[in-house]
């Protein structure tokens, strides 16, 4: 009995010692929640990979504030309920200093009350305007709102002196959001919407809608949706012999779109996209050139798969957060939050970020470049 007590004593002292050692090199803990699996896995997986890659990079170059950094990444399986649980765990169990993610808008909106109430800064990688408007003191985001993409399209139309537009949008969350943004923005920019058509995200033939558009005096068509709908529209447009310029949303800025539509049908389509996809065409003296080139080289070297603009959001979020922690010289959530609002001129893969107490997105429509599809490839317009 007595010996057992002594034994316990030893174990106890040993555990204390271990704890003390651990205390000395306590890493900076940062949480991350991404949709690594489920329907939104094409968004979440590159983000998880990016964060894990950057963790290794930061620790190799000495960590943050002389301490190693540890990213605790949870998979929300594209499910809002699981996102809330994951954020709860990050805050209460893992006691992280800040959170990156989630990857989709719905999940972000679901956790804003939680992160806000616990006063933990959260940098979302999703695009919805509602995430940062109205501004919540602890909520930031690095993905440009769809409104900015719509603005870029309308600017391009104005440059070409096109004032009448027909819009065709998917009847899902993304398409409906784009439709609202365009209807809100058009009158402000002196553009009139002469046709407003909708299609189901699973529809396989949009010739009826396009025939209707063909009968109007629209000078341009804007389609808002994610694959495969826009690819079908590109095919149907050529099939119907419609010569009106076609704009796509940033939602199809991947090679998959050109493959699905077929290069001959995609020819001449205009869309706003991140600079990342036209990296070779960015001038060498552009401020984002270096960061984009490095990101592509590191990512493709490590994972042997093509880089995506979605992973770029995670890259920018990590960079901004690390800078804020360094600026604050502290890992206190309140201090990080204050420093985040002061981040200025940060060069990320998506553009130059400038945060203020009123502006928690940091990007402008300059994040998008207009791209034209020529011979099955992107051509950056200037």
């Amino acid at each position, binding site marked *: 009995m007595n010996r057992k007590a002594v034994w316990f004593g030893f174990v106890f002292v040993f555990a204390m010692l271990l704890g003390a050692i651990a205390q000395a090199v306590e890493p900076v803990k940062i949480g991350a929640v991404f949709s690594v699996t489920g329907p939104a896995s094409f968004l979440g997986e590159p983000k998880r990979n990016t964060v894990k890659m950057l963790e290794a990079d930061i620790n190799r170059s000495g960590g943050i504030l002389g301490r190693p950094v540890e990213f605790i990444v949870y998979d929300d399986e594209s499910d809002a309920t699981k996102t809330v649980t994951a954020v709860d765990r990050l805050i209460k169990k893992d006691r992280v200093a800040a959170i990156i993610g989630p990857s989709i808008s719905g999940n972000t909106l679901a956790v804003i009350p939680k992160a806000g109430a616990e006063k933990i800064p959260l940098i979302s990688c999703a695009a919805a305007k509602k995430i940062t408007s109205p501004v919540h003191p602890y909520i930031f985001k690095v993905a440009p709102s769809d409104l900015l993409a719509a603005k870029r399209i309308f600017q391009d139309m104005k440059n070409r002196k096109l004032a009448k537009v027909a819009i065709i949008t998917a009847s899902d969350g993304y398409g409906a959001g784009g439709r609202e943004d365009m209807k809100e923005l058009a009158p402000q920019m002196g553009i009139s919407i002469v046709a407003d058509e909708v299609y189901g995200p*699973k529809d*396989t033939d949009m010739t009826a809608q396009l*025939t*209707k558009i063909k*009968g109007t005096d629209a000078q341009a068509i804007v389609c808002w949706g994610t694959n495969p709908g826009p690819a079908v529209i590109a095919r149907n447009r050529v099939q119907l012999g419609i010569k009106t310029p076609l704009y796509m949303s940033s939602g199809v800025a991947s090679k998959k779109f050109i493959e699905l539509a077929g290069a001959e049908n995609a020819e001449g389509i205009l869309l706003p996209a991140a600079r990342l996809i036209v990296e070779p065409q960015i001038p060498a003296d552009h401020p984002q050139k270096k960061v984009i080139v490095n990101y592509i080289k590191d990512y493709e070297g490590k994972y042997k798969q093509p880089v995506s603009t979605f992973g770029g959001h995670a890259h920018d979020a990590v960079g901004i957060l690390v800078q804020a922690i360094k600026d604050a010289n502290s890992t206190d959530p309140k201090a990080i939050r204050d420093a985040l609002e002061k981040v200025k001129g940060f060069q990320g893969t998506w553009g130059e970020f400038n945060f203020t107490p009123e502006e928690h997105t940091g990007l402008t429509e300059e994040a998008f470049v207009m791209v034209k599809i020529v011979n099955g490839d992107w051509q950056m317009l200037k």
Partner: protein
Amino acid sequence: MPTASALLQYVISGATVGSTYGLAALGFTVIYNTAGIINFAQGEFVMLGGMLAVFALRWGGVPLPLAVPLAVLAVTVVGIMVNRVTIRPVRGRSPLTLIIITIGVSILLRGGAMLIFGKDTFALPAFSGGGPIQVGGAALLPQSLWVFGITLLTVLGMKFFFEHTLTGKAMLACSSDRKAASLMGIHVDFMVTLSFAFSAFVGAVGGVILAPITLTAYDAGILLGLKGFAACILGGLGNPFGAVIGGILLGILESLGAGFISSGYKDAVAFIIMLGLLFWRPSGLFGGSQAERV
């Protein structure tokens, strides 16, 4: 006011998509006529037709004229297997049990396709090249001609088979009265297998001929199955000719609904007209009046 050429365009587009609804409906009809059940995996046969052709072409390096029949053949084998593995062991149970099994099969096939082919959408090249043909101001794709031609051939073939061959008549006999057919020396199990093979065959044909126009993905079968079923009801359950006409009609209704009323309510327009029609003629457009034995 839409012009005549716009109207023609709606009809052409609708009829092209409607042909696939019709072929899916034909598949429902064949199995219903023999086994007396609705096979809810029908949409998956259509999906598999398109997907297997894409993959024979992309991964197998098989040329298109060979990939298409190969895909159709493979789906036919899948159809036979579905019957062998899932339906035959529980034959004689209530139709409801069998129908629920087919729903399970559809989920299995969809899930399997997702794991093997991935979640992406794929495109199949058109069977013959050339740009759209202009007909009275409307555009007609060469592929649409393939769709119409192959659909017509399939329907005529089926009609001939059921009305003029002994095997076809034997299949119909199985649906009228299984026991009597069996007593007459008809091998009922074989007839049911045959009906699954036929139904998978026509489904796959629909899938491959439409894939160049509409693209295909692992989950394309859900909607096609649903529309095919609706077409089947519209044309009168059990009537192969009515099923195809029902499908084409449904496609045209959808297209006109999108063109004249609102693209947001495209599906609703088609289904509302269909519901109205069924109130007026519950047995469908081409279904004979049914006499229930008491």
